[in-house]
C-alpha cells in the first residue's frame, strides 16, 4: 500500500478510502469497496455516487486505507483454529436431542421458537 501523502506533488493526489455501507438500522456496516478523494467528506460523497446510485442505505463509513490493519492471506496459521472438529460447539452437533425429546413424548424446541415467543 504505497500511499503518498505529499502535498507538493505536481498533479493532484487523492488518498484511498475504504467504504462501509449500512443498509438498515439493525444491519452492520459492510465493506463494499473503495474510492479516492481529497477529503473524508468528499470520499463519502464519491462513495454515495459510486455505490448507492440504485440501492438505499442509511449510513456510510469511509476509513483511510492506511488505518486498516489487515491480516496476511499467507498466514493461514492465524485461522488454524478451524482445523479441528468443532461440532461440539455447533447446534449441528446435538441432533440427538430431538430424538430423545421424542422418546419423552415432547417436541424439541429451537432458539427460533424462543425468539418467536418473545415477539408474540
Amino acid at each position: 500500500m504505497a500511499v503518498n501523502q505529499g502535498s507538493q506533488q505536481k498533479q493532484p493526489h487523492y488518498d484511498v478510502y475504504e467504504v462501509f455501507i449500512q443498509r438498515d438500522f439493525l444491519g452492520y456496516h459492510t465493506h463494499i469497496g473503495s474510492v479516492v478523494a481529497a477529503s473524508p467528506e468528499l470520499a463519502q460523497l464519491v462513495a454515495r455516487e459510486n455505490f448507492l446510485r440504485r440501492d438505499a442505505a442509511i449510513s456510510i463509513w469511509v476509513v483511510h486505507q492506511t488505518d486498516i490493519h489487515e491480516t496476511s492471506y499467507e498466514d493461514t496459521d492465524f485461522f488454524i483454529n478451524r482445523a479441528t472438529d468443532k461440532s461440539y460447539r455447533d447446534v449441528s452437533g446435538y441432533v440427538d436431542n430431538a430424538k430423545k425429546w421424542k422418546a419423552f413424548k415432547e417436541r424439541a424446541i429451537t432458539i427460533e421458537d424462543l425468539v418467536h415467543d418473545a415477539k408474540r
Partner: protein
Amino acid sequence: MSQDLRENAFMERIERGEKIESTDWMPEEYRKLLIKQIHMHGISEVMGAYPEKEWVPKAPNLRRKLALIAKVQDEIGHGQLLLRVAEDLARPYGKVRDDMIEDVYTGRVKFHNVFHMDAPTWADAGVIGFLVDGGAIITQASLLESSYAPYARILTRICAEESFHMQHGESIVLALADGTEQQREMLQQAIHHWWPSMMFFFGPPEMSGASLRMMDYKIRTRTNEQLRQRFIGRYAPRIHALGLTLPDSNVYYDVEKDLWTYSEPDWEMFSHMVRENSGPQSQQRLQLRRQAHEGQQWVREAMIRANNLQQPAIS
C-alpha cells in the same frame, strides 16, 4: 433547540419505532438507563461463566469438557461485546473498560441472581444450560427489538451463539434423564435447586420505576411477567415430560385466565443476595474476578509499553 423540544423530538422518534445510534443526541435519562442495563448485562455474562467454569475440570468426558469450555468462552465473549456497547454510551462520563470491570467487585454494578448460586453437581452444570440459558435467551430475544440499535445488533449475534448453549444444556439434561436412577435423582435435585432462582430471574410482576422508564423508551418492550410466563410455558411442560417434578405445586396453566400460576419466589431473600452479593458463591466468585483483573494488570500495562516501543507502521 431547547431541551424540552429536543426531548419531545426524541420521544417522537421512539414512538415512530426509529432506532437510536450511539452518536445520536439522546436524553441523559435514556443514556443512563442504557448504561445501567447493558453494564449489568455484560457483567452478568462474565460472572455467568463462573458456575460452569467450576465444572470444566470435572466434566465426565472430553466432548462435554470441550463443549463446556466453548460455552464459557462464549459467555466471556458476550461480556466483552456488551461492555463495548456500554463504554460507548459511558464516554461522556469518562468511564473505560477498567472502571466497568472494577465496578463489579466494588459493588457498583450488580449481576443476575442465578450467578450467585452454587452448582454442586454435574446435573447443575446441565440445568444451567437448560434453564438459565433458556431464561436468558427469552430475555435477550425480547431485546432484539430494542430502540437502541447497537444493543439490538450485538444481541443478534449473541442469540445466534446462545442456540448452541441451549442444545448443550438440553443434551446433558436428556442424558441424565435417560440414565440411571441415581442420575435422574441428581437431575431432579438440580431442577428443584434452580427453579426458584429462575422465578426471581425475570424480576417482580410490579416493575420498578427504572424498568417502567425503559419500557417508555422502548429499550425493552416486554414486562417481567410476560417474560416469566413465556419461560414457564416452555419449560414446565418439558420438565414434566421428563417425568420430573417442580418444587412448586402451584405451577399449572389456568385456561380461563390464559396464564401460568406459580408461587412467588422469596423476593426479599433473592434481592438481598443480589444487592449485598451475599449468595452461596457470590464472594468467592467476586474474589476470583478481582484476582484475575488485578493479577493481570501488569500484562495489560506491558502490552501498552510493547506497542509504544514498536516503530510507527510504515505506510
